[in-house]
């Protein structure tokens, strides 16, 4: 299937509309050093928010251009690929760009109070600078069409993430070891990834993803390419916290400042999953990845294991944030499972779950942060009975919790429905049943939170006051979004379907 580019790009882009792909990255990237340069605490937050909001606007504009299935190819500096770096926007990554920038724009107003209470004042400028770098990195990973460029952006986002997690040390010193763990694991992941890219470059002589894809399709695979594939999947699997490479995640999400946990949980692993999708379907072609390498028989059991093992561990946690982190590992299992189905419905399920789980988890972590603001921590014995003292925060947590279970009328239901449908369509009976059975574990761990919040007396020594409005409003925007996207699926499911179609059609080739 030949896909036409959405915009005919001449050698050098001239209008603002044509410059949108690079502005998507440049705006937050430049804003980060600006914050440090001004060094003024009063300017820090407004600049961060403005950069994030502009990014959101750009990403929506990009999504609108590619929503019908075309793509935009942007050549940096007018240097044509494969020599120059190409940014390529299609439905799959435009969707992710919107997700990441929208989550960031909603979380930032929340972050203001939350960060003020959890991070020392003198660190604020650097904190927000790191935040913007992390944001830039994630956006870059998603937008670029160049393999080495992906690595560069992965490193940008990872390095800043280590710093962001360590910023939680003001509240709990264990944030430092969590950041250190992630530093080691993340570096191993990035190294594996870059080794894989190196092998690919060795075998094909190019770094442009579309170009690599064309050459693999022409010349077929060889051992180097197989090895490259393995390195890339393992490397990105580490970043995506695919079970059993998830060990860095629970501690990192638990001890990071609440706003950071919310942002990372909703976006960071999602970007990594996207890279895996892109490599498996656009670069290597599914036939190669699955038939010759039998990837489904490696990834599918791991996905199922994640769904059960991580959910099971989540049941026994006594800290809300830690429970949510383990639940994330389980949910990533659903996304990986969708990939291994190798059908359009399966990939649609993965992509729509990226979005739906993103907003759900963001809402839950924001709720946890709001509770922690008043209770001092998110341990169950501290937050118990908060349903009475913080009714609005708790109600939002209930809504998002129901979405995490996948109750109809919430976003989580939509992705679960599509995933089960995909498994049934393929005739994978057992897998469909395993998905629903594992979501019963979600009922257990979510209900434990509800009981803690509502059926206990508040703990002594907690502040009995509702969270400030600046936290409540973003929290409720997210919570209501989980309901809205449970009914109106035009945007989410529609875009996911277009994206899956595009991915399964294989590569669109180089622009000659």
């Amino acid at each position, binding site marked *: 299937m030949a896909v036409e580019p959405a915009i005919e790009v001449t050698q050098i882009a001239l209008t603002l509309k044509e410059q949108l792909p690079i502005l998507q990255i440049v705006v937050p990237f430049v804003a980060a050093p600006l914050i440090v340069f001004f060094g003024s605490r009063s300017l820090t937050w407004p600049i961060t928010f403005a950069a994030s909001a502009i990014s959101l606007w750009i990403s929506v504009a990009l999504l609108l251009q590619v929503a019908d299935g075309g793509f935009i190819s942007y050549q940096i500096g007018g240097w044509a690929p494969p020599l120059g770096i190409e940014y390529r926007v299609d439905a799959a990554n435009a969707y992710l760009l919107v997700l990441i920038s929208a989550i960031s724009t909603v979380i930032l107003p929340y972050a203001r109070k939350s960060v003020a209470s959890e991070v020392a004042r003198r660190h604020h400028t650097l904190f927000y600078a790191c935040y913007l770098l992390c944001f830039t990195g994630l956006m870059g990973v998603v937008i670029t069409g160049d393999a080495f460029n992906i690595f560069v952006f992965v490193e940008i986002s990872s390095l800043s993430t280590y710093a962001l997690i360590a910023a939680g040390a003001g509240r709990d010193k264990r944030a430092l070891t969590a950041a250190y763990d992630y530093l080691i694991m993340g570096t191993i992941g990035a190294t594996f990834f870059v080794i894989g890219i190196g092998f690919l470059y060795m075998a094909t002589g190019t770094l442009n993803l579309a170009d690599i894809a064309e050459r693999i399709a022409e010349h077929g695979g060889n051992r180097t390419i197989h090895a490259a594939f393995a390195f890339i999947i393992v490397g990105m699997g580490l970043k995506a916290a695919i079970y059993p490479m998830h060990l860095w995640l629970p501690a990192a999400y638990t001890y990071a400042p609440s706003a950071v946990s919310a942002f990372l949980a909703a976006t960071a692993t999602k970007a990594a999953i996207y890279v895996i999708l892109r490599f498996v379907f656009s670069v290597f072609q599914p036939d190669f990845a699955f038939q010759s390498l039998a990837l489904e028989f490696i990834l599918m059991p791991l996905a199922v294991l994640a769904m059960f093992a991580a959910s099971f561990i989540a049941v026994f946690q006594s800290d809300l944030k830690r429970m949510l982190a383990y639940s994330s590992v389980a949910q990533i299992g659903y996304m990986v499972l969708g990939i291994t189905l190798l059908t359009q419905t399966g990939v649609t399920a993965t992509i729509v779950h990226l979005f739906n789980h993103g907003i759900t988890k963001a809402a839950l972590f924001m709720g946890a942060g709001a509770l922690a603001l008043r209770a001092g921590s998110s341990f169950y014995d501290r937050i118990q009975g908060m349903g009475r003292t913080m009714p609005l925060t708790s109600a939002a947590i209930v809504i998002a919790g129901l979405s995490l279970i996948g109750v*109809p009328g919430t976003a989580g239901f939509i992705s679960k429905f599509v995933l089960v449908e995909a498994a*049934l369509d393929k005739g994978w009976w057992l897998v469909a049943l395993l998905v*629903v059975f594992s979501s*019963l574990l979600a*009922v257990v761990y979510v209900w434990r939170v509800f009981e803690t919040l509502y059926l206990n007396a508040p703990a002594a020594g907690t502040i009995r006051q509702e969270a400030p409005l600046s936290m409540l409003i973003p929290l409720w925007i997210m919570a209501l979004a989980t309901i809205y996207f449970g009914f109106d699926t035009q945007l989410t499911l529609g875009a996911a379907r277009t994206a899956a179609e595009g991915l399964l059609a294989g590569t669109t080739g180089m622009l000659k």
Partner: protein
Amino acid sequence: MEITTAIILSMLVPFGATFTNLIFHDRENLRDGLTLGAAIVTFGLVLTILAKNGSATSETLTLFEVFPGVDIAFNVEPLGLLFAVVASGLWILTHIYAIGYMRGNKEKHHARFFACFSFAIASVMGIAFSANMLTLFLFYEFLTISTYPLVAHKGTPEAIRGARTYMSVLMGTSIALLLVAVIWTYSLTGTLDFAKGGILEGRVAGVMVPLLLGFYAFGIGKAALMPFHRWLPAAMVAPTPVSALLHAVAVVKAGVFTMMKVGIYVFGIDFLAETRASEWLMWLAAFSIIAASLVAMTKDNLKARLAYSTVSQLSYITLGVALATSLGVLGGGLHIAMHAMGKITLFMCAGSIYVATHKTNISQMTGLGRVMPITFGAFMIGALSIIGLPPMGGSWSKWLLIMGAADTGQWIMIVVLMVSSLLNIAYLLPVVARGFFLSDPENGGPVREAPLLCWLPPALTAAGTVALFFYAGTIQQFLMPLVAAN
């Protein structure tokens, strides 16, 4: 008013009552008055639909397309309308009763209680008017979630345990089985609409038909088919108005209603009859009827006994569908109304006894009939209706079910229904007999009824069971389109 507007309003009005309860949580007369108003308006809306639409199937109102070919959509058809009339009508009486019970009993957290109650009614309206399986499933889950706080209401360890059982059985079955059945149906047919004659014919064959039916039948946990009936006795820790409306009318009837919808509109009665896919369900329902009655006999706690009686009676309706014949379907449909009226009477009487004397066990109620003659009188009438004796409404639905069994030559089922009636006598009438004919010095004294708001509603519903005896024919006529040839 357009029918579609009335449908939407009949859900929005109780939904709005949820919020008036929360907003005016400390002004109890205003709060309870507004909810009563909402109940009356809701009933009025349902009657408007009834008057306008009769027993036709109305046009479908579509709100969102959630998946290709599957919408959030509503319409009116006879069975749903009957369910809506029963639930919204009894809501008015139960609300009055609940005000008396909650105040008389000095229960706490009234606002939260009535808010969840109203939300549950809104969900029931959604179930009654849903035009496809997805919409029904949506409101089915809303109903589970909104009734959970009602079961856990007292906050005692016992209530929390009961609520946990309630939650885990209902949510567990619906997620693990019903959802799979729904998606499987969608995967087979590409639609989930309720259509006359079913949507599955020609799409699924062989052993897969009873298997799919099994996913539905066990997935609809609210129908309390054994072995997934444990939630119903567990829910009896809730305050009695909850047991009365929700666990004798709304929640359990939502279960069997869904069962009937699946039988009539998803599988199609003819398809079930042809493939004999529902035969196993018939036997299981028969087992549930007898086994639950036997368990009921062993219970000394009055509410527990009534709960097991409900488990048994619900299986009548499941049996009606499983017979896969017109008379069975009509009998099942009729039994939704008849059992609702009878059982709500029994539960409200049990609550009145509790409010007046704080007694929960049958063995403590010796001689109480002379102290509370109206309550025990109403209990007796309700019990006779459940047993199925004329001139109470319950006799007609049982009659139709027996005719249905005879129609298909299932003689054993006739025996089951007969034995069940005998068992009903054995576990319901001793309560009345003990109250009126035995005496206990502890329960002596002059007539001392529960507060007016507690004894009046059951007296009215008891009268209702008698009225239903005479209007059964009308209801049966009303349900005829369900079984009319295509």
